[in-house]
């Protein structure tokens, strides 16, 4: 009841004086991690209580003093001589792949990899001395016993049908999936704390990840690094489709690079250009990998990727040409001095004889790589070589199109999703998966995580391919619990060749409590992307050999067999309207009920306390009128 009383007053305040407490909204909106929470709490009481503890933290003013030390140089020389440099245990690589897309857009994909020959999870040994690996992430890994961490922030939607497959796919919004080490006993507690810490590191609202949007997929998200863990109790997966990615997320991401944005490829990352694009996705992937080909010991890999699609065709006055300067408003002058390799790859597969476009400056270095089931040819620019930069000491790649490019091969796997139905009570989710392979059928794993406020009717689940029922060979369904966990649906579906498979399921929209609505409830509620993972039959033999000098873009997903390659496709997130009440209603209800009660009570009270007495019946109206006339005329009155 206490809550009720204050709740009512909250409504009142919202309606009549919504500016009375503007600070309370701030506190609710973003409390970044533990420290943020602590901060926001500490503000309020301290203002109230000036004489108490305010004095404790007023040390903004710094005093600098020189340090007086008696430096003893006696044993110094000895020490420096006996010191032998340890073998470089960590290395850094950077890479930029530019692929002209058939739609006229340019796809630029940055990858930065830091490899460190160390084991964070070794018993009894604390990792505390960092060189190239960022300290903040290292501390997180060891504190929360993280085996593998994948986090991505994406603005915009990757259009598979126009752009083909990306090197590393990611859903719109924020996505986080983490494999914990199997020694962790309280996985949920670790997960909660980890999301809070990460939201502090990346300046994102990851602290909104809680049990209501976390799932434990049983098959779709296998570890990408070393170690064959299958117990999905240690896996947590969550997406925030609503998350908006902007500069404040890019800056901390750039800070994790050893060279920052001061040297190397990262100088190209100017946020006003990167965010003026059709698609922007930045990600951090941490996983244990093999140290060498023989795989005798573990190393930790931090892979930072940034993928951008520029729409230069419409912004460039319909001229199909681009250059580094046009895209990033910078040119390259040097590689990051800490990087062991620093390369730019430009995809020239469609242009073997130079009939489609001109690339300048020309480079003699060519490289071939099999990536995503296709053999591609790349021009390679090695930034560690001085001659790459030419006489101007700066590299500005320029590509000028000569003619129209041909049609793109349709991607073999594609998926899309939409909500059908009308009204605010029920609806139907349609997921459509396309297999564009002309003659091969292959299985796909579909994973769908639906918030609890869409109550799925799982008996209405139908899977149809070529207008025939398609029975999934594996279904893992975990029903939602209201306000506790979302629905999780995983299915293994065989896709017939050259077909369209449709998965439908009906749902009912739940009524939320009034505090559970977002600040803009009429915008709708997001439902995260559906994830389709598959081993797609490859047209060319995939490279299964693990080598350290492979280009980064082709070495992210381990290839197990030659005949197929791994693809993950994310569908669009859904925006679903829920029945939304009129939020000023509670106060109206209060007023109405109070009036009703008051009226009822008033008549009841009157009835009880009024004094009744016999009254002389008064004359009827007709007689009174008659008497009035009679009085005027002077005639005796009627009685």
């Amino acid at each position, binding site marked *: *009841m206490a809550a009720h009383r204050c709740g009512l007053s909250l409504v009142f305040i919202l309606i009549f004086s919504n500016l009375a407490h503007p600070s309370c909204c701030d506190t609710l909106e973003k409390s970044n991690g533990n420290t943020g929470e602590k901060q926001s709490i500490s503000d309020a009481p301290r203002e109230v209580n000036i004489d108490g503890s305010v004095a404790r933290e007023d040390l903004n003013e710094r005093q600098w003093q*020189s340090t007086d030390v008696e430096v003893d140089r006696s044993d110094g020389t000895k020490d420096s001589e006996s010191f032998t440099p340890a073998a470089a245990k960590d290395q850094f690589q950077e890479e930029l792949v530019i692929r002209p897309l058939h739609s006229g857009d340019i796809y630029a994909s940055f990858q930065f990899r830091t490899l460190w020959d160390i084991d964070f999870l070794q018993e009894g040994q604390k990792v*505390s001395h960092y060189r190239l690996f960022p300290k903040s992430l290292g501390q997180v890994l060891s504190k929360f016993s993280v085996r593998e961490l994948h986090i991505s922030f994406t603005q915009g939607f990757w259009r598979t049908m126009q752009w083909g497959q990306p090197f590393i796919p990611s859903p719109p919004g924020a996505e986080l999936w983490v494999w914990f080490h199997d020694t962790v006993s309280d996985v949920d507690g670790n997960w909660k704390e980890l999301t809070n810490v990460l939201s502090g590191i990346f300046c994102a609202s990851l602290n909104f990840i809680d049990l209501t949007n976390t799932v434990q997929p049983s098959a779709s998200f296998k570890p990408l690094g070393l170690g064959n863990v299958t117990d999905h109790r240690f896996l947590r997966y969550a997406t925030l489709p609503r998350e908006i990615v902007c500069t404040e997320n890019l800056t901390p991401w750039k800070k994790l690079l050893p060279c920052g944005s001061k040297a190397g490829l990262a100088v190209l990352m100017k946020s006003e250009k990167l965010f003026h694009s059709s698609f922007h996705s930045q990600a951090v992937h941490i996983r244990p990998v093999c140290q060498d080909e023989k795989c005798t010991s573990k190393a930790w890999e931090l892979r930072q990727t940034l993928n951008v699609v520029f729409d230069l065709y419409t912004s460039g006055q319909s001229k199909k040409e681009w250059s580094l300067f046009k895209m990033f408003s910078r040119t390259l002058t040097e590689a990051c001095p800490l990087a062991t390799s620093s390369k730019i790859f430009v995809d020239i597969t469609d242009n073997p004889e130079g009939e489609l476009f001109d690339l300048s400056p020309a480079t003699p270095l060519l490289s071939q790589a099999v990536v995503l089931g296709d053999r591609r040819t790349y021009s390679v620019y090695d930034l560690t070589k001085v001659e790459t930069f030419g006489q101007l000491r700066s590299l500005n790649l320029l590509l000028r199109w000569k003619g129209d490019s041909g049609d793109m091969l349709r991607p073999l796997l594609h998926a899309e999703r939409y909500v059908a139905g009308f009204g605010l009570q029920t609806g139907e989710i349609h997921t459509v998966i396309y297999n564009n392979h002309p003659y091969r059928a292959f299985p796909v794993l579909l994973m769908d995580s639906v918030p609890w406020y869409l109550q799925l009717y799982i008996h209405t689940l139908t899977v149809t391919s070529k207008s025939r029922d398609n029975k999934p060979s594996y279904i893992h369904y975990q029903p939602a619990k209201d306000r506790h966990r979302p629905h999780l649906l995983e299915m293994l579906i065989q896709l017939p060749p050259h077909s369209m498979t449709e998965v439908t399921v009906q749902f009912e929209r739940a009524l939320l409590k009034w505090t559970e609505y977002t600040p803009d409830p009429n915008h709708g509620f997001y439902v995260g992307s559906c994830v389709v993972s598959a081993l797609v039959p490859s047209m060319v033999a995939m490279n299964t050999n693990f080598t350290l000098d492979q280009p980064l873009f082709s070495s992210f997903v381990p290839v197990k067999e030659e005949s197929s390659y791994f693809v993950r496709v994310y569908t669009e997130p859904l925006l679903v309207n829920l029945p939304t009440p009129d939020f000023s209603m509670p106060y109206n209800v209060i007023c109405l009920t109070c009036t009703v*009660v*008051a009226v009822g009570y008033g008549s009841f009270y009157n009835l009880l306390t009024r*004094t009744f007495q016999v009254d002389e019946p008064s004359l009827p109206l007709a007689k009174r009128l008659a008497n009035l006339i009679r009085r005027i005329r002077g005639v005796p009155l009627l009685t």
Partner: protein
Amino acid sequence: MAALQLEKQRGRYAALAIAAVVIVVGIPLWWKTTETYRAWLPFSEISELDTLQLQLSVDIEVVFSRGTLTPEQQKKVPLSHVSEKEHKIDAKTGLRYKYETRYRTATVMEEDALNQQTAAEADLSLHMLSESSCGSVVVYVIPESSTLLPEDVKVYVGQRRTALLRSPPFKSSWSLKEVLSSLDVKVEQVVSTMSFNHEDIVAALSDRVRMTKVTKESMADSMRAIKSSPGYEITFSLLNPDPKSHSLHWDIEGAVKSYIQPLLNKLAPIANFSVDSQILYYAVLGVNPRFDNSVSAYTLNADSLSHVINPVEARLGSNAASSNPVLNFLLYVPDAHHSPLFIRDHSKREVPSNAFHSPRWGGIMVYNVNEMYGPEAEHPVDIHINMAKVMGVFLAQLRLMLGVQHTHPPPGFVLQSPGSAGLADWELDRLLWSRSVENIATASTTITSLAQLLDQIGNIVINDNIAQQVSSAVTSLQSAVAELEAGNLAFALQYSREAILASERAFFDPSLLHLLYFPDDQKFAIYIPLFLPMCVPIVLSLLKIVSEAKKRRADKQAKND
């Protein structure tokens, strides 16, 4: 007419009955159902803590070695003596120091120990004989003619809790009392060096007491030391603004193990420390150093130091895995075009250590490598950093930050340098004294202001866990004060740490903010549509009844008259 009277009477009774029901049932029901949950807090005990009377007790042992006392004087020892000093800090805070001095003669073993060649050896062997308890002080009085100490040294303070005191010339005719009183001054000096002194304790109380007449220096001292906290993160960062021209190697792991870790092990009772390090590339200072032709070097003036650190600080990062305060130690290697770089202090002299520090933040050392380039060096040059030199500076800065103050011994005193441990036992004791007092002061301030806040704002929900934290903080505080009084320094510190932890946890508990605070006037605005129509008829009929009763009484009186 009688029927009318009866009817009126009935109406009156009905109105009274309704008013009674509203008052007896309605109002308590409303009150009960809209109450906020407020667990019981020990307000009376908290208000007792508001006035803090601290008593610090030190055990002092004065041991006379052979040849300092005449046989007659010796007969009267052992004896003991208690002296107390009282200081009033402000209206609510008082301090009392209690010195319990016991006098005895040296045992045979101690005599043997005192017959060593040097004072340091004597100190060590005395330490082997008996382990003195935390916070106590043992003073050995040695004969004036002893060769243990150099000629002009009056007092030698060892690495542990013992001091050697060269006895002033006694006349053999003096009674023991006169001998002791002549010793007293010296012993007091020793105690104020090795144990707490008044200035430190007052500085430690700065949380409670608004200081007005504190000297600037002691203020700087207390500001420099980082605030008491259950743990500290020590971060060493190597700043390399120019990785193109030099690649730096530092053996931070070994250096921490051999230089920093012994000190931290010693300080383990005070707090948990964790040490880490990182290398930051392209981290530049915020100020462009000026080239000085006279020394052909770049110089940084003390005034510009405050601007130096801001751009670097953004890249240092906080510790992601804990919320303890961070102490930063930066080693800055200037880039090839700006070296050598020297720091000048306010009087324009070069600082020999080339390092500076900021209170409660950490320190920076500039490490010039320009002479290591060699004539035809190939870039980047591999440079190995001399960690002994660096760590000497950082260790000194760390001691300052942790509040191990520089003691200014009176003339004639010799302090043994702390050796490999980095900290002498008595230095640790001094730190423990001021930390205990500081913790008690901070925790009591936190708890009283929390109680005051909860008392002022009646709408805050006080959950059971907060009440529990508050009571545990209060009991720990009381135990800490009691232990200080009893002279058990180690326990006092432990209890005061518990108190500060519990009080902070209660103060920062998020549940205190669950229901925000709503002013009463707004709350009543909600109730008015219900209360007004209900209360007006009741109040009016009550008024009417009262006025009728008055009128009737007046009538009756008139009739009587």
